[in-house]
């Protein structure tokens, strides 16, 4: 087992902490600079519900105190940092006494589930197709069809999602239009619920898959071209091994590892894309939560969701950076 040098590890940990710290600070500073007062919005919502609110000045002051807005900024900031470490983002203003962390915790499994499934599928399909583009023995059709399909890789998943939604949900009605499970099933670990979840998740996942597999395929093509010229591939051919065996055991196996680092650069875009896909499919993940919060001007939820998503992204990048040297012994670390 190769060991990770301490300097590399320290470097990665510092980057992770800085990322989370800067993101948290930005999320905190931006609304403070804005003229809009969250307590005001809260009061406005009460007024909208009840016609007029008596003693609104007192309520406003009380709300400010509850949100901690009456304290000096620097104290507010450190309190906020302390809270955010413990995932305490305060209470949602739209669905008032519910803590933001509870809302996020409810939505997060859906987002992570959808993301893992679509990433695994794209990774397999993309790398396989990328390899076939270079492989001498793949049919000509493959070599023509895949590059043509790559054109779609520049499209953000929200656009492919809209088109797929229209064709398969609105027109053909093969799949449900929105939601993450049917209204007629009880959430639980039973068969009906699982089927319903898969049925609802298919289109959102597909809309991400069709536009992201090309990214992996392109990268794989470049890596396969270099592997193709290597001595060990030549030797395997000279030994008379079956071409398919060479493809899987000699070429793809060696070419696929650098693809994992590409993942670290791509994940930010993937996350943002999925937030929008969840919004159009009204999928119960954090994307929908974020969209609803924007509609309600629910700042604590917007902040909480943004922070959690950025934290997830930073953690994923950190893990990729950490795991990669362990699985690819060809990489040697320097300090940087």
């Amino acid at each position, binding site marked *: 087992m190769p060991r990770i040098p301490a300097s590399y590890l320290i470097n990665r940990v*510092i*980057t992770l902490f*800085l*990322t989370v710290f*800067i*993101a948290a600070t*930005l*999320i905190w500073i*931006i*609304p403070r*600079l*804005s003229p*809009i007062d969250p307590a005001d919005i809260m009061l406005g919502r009460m007024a909208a519900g009840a016609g007029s609110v008596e003693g609104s000045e007192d309520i406003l002051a009380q709300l400010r105190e509850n949100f901690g807005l009456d304290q000096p900024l620097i104290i507010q900031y450190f309190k906020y940092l302390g809270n955010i470490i413990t995932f305490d983002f305060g209470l949602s203003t739209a669905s008032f006494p519910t803590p933001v962390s509870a809302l996020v915790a409810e939505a997060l499994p859906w987002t992570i589930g959808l993301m893992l499934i679509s990433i695994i599928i794209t990774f397999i399909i993309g790398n396989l197709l990328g390899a076939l583009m270079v492989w001498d023995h793949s049919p000509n059709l493959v070599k023509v069809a895949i590059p043509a399909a790559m*054109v*779609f*890789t*520049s*499209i*953000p998943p*929200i*656009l492919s999602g*809209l*088109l797929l*939604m*229209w064709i398969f*949900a*609105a027109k053909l009605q093969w799949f449900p*239009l929105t939601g993450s499970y049917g209204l007629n099933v009880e959430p639980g670990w039973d068969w009906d619920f699982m089927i319903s979840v898969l049925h609802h998740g298919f289109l959102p996942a597909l809309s991400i898959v069709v536009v992201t597999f090309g990214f992996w395929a392109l990268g794989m093509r470049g890596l396969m071209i270099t592997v193709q010229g290597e001595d060990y591939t030549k030797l395997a051919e000279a030994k008379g091994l079956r071409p398919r065996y060479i493809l899987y055991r000699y070429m793809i196996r060696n070419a696929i590892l650098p693809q994992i680092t590409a993942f670290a*650069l791509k994940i*930010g*875009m993937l*996350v*943002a*894309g999925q*937030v*929008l896909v969840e*919004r*159009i499919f009204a999928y119960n993940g954090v994307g929908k939560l*974020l*969209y609803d*919060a*924007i*509609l309600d*001007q629910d*700042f604590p939820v*917007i*902040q909480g*969701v*943004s922070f959690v*998503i*950025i934290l997830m*992204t*930073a953690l994923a*990048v950190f893990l990729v950076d950490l795991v990669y040297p362990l699985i690819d012994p060809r990489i040697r670390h320097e300090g*940087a």
Partner: protein
Amino acid sequence: MADQTVTQSEEVTAKQIRRMKRFDNPWRNPKLIWGAGILLGIVAIGILGRIFWDPDLVFTGSGMTRQAPVGFENLRGQAGTWAHPLGTDGAGRDVLALLIIGAPNSLFVGVLASLIGMSIGIFLGFSAGFIRGRTDDVIRVLSDVMITIPPLLILVVFQAAYGDINLTMMAILIAAFVWQSPTRLIRAQVLSMRESGYVQMARLSGASTMHIMFREMLPNLVPYLFGSFIANVTTSIVTAVGLEVLGLGPQRIPTLGRTIYEAINSGALIQNLWWWWGIPTILLALMFIGLLLINLGLDEVSNPRLRKL
């Protein structure tokens, strides 16, 4: 047997020569030409549309609501008319006029954000590569950190707190998140280039640092910079459209993303009002395809090994 091989190899060479001739000038790359053509087409829609079509039709209520394009019928069974060749949206806005105004807006945001990001990237990348030491450490760590943060989420917080913004403001905000990749790229290139023969030569002949940076090194970076620029235009437009589809972004200027947002919210998908959301979607998709083709073409221009014979 021998004859066969000879003819085969001759055939190949003849084919290669034909191909070589076609690729003789690397800039006459088909991908590049197609990509540029698509983007020019979109710009042309914006320019010619303003001349030959009435841009005021983008305002609410300039026609009947939910009219179908020419040759189609809407839910009420009304056929489309030439008054609104691409139909109208739920508020009676002309879809053609929306495209004429909205498409160039999206490109504008993308290009402006990318230009600003590029300028920051050139400045920081050269500083890091030349000054090295602490400056380099700070710039490197900062770009590593910022590349992980998805711009959309910070911008959502910003927009939710500030409300309406204009296109230029949106471009500047997005630019704050697209300087990282050019910075990293230029830094890496500068670090490797500064040891190369011609830079050492220039230094020995007493050229100033500015001269070495901008006259000796920068021209060699042009293909990379161009590729990075186009990639950033795509990222910027994706981010802008993302904001608009969430109902944020400019509120008073028609944009393609906002049109899609309104269409989804009005249930246009179920009501089969495909022209309302579909035409802007297709146009945006074309824009991204054009940008991708340019980028692939540029790759082939700067890296001859990718040109297939």
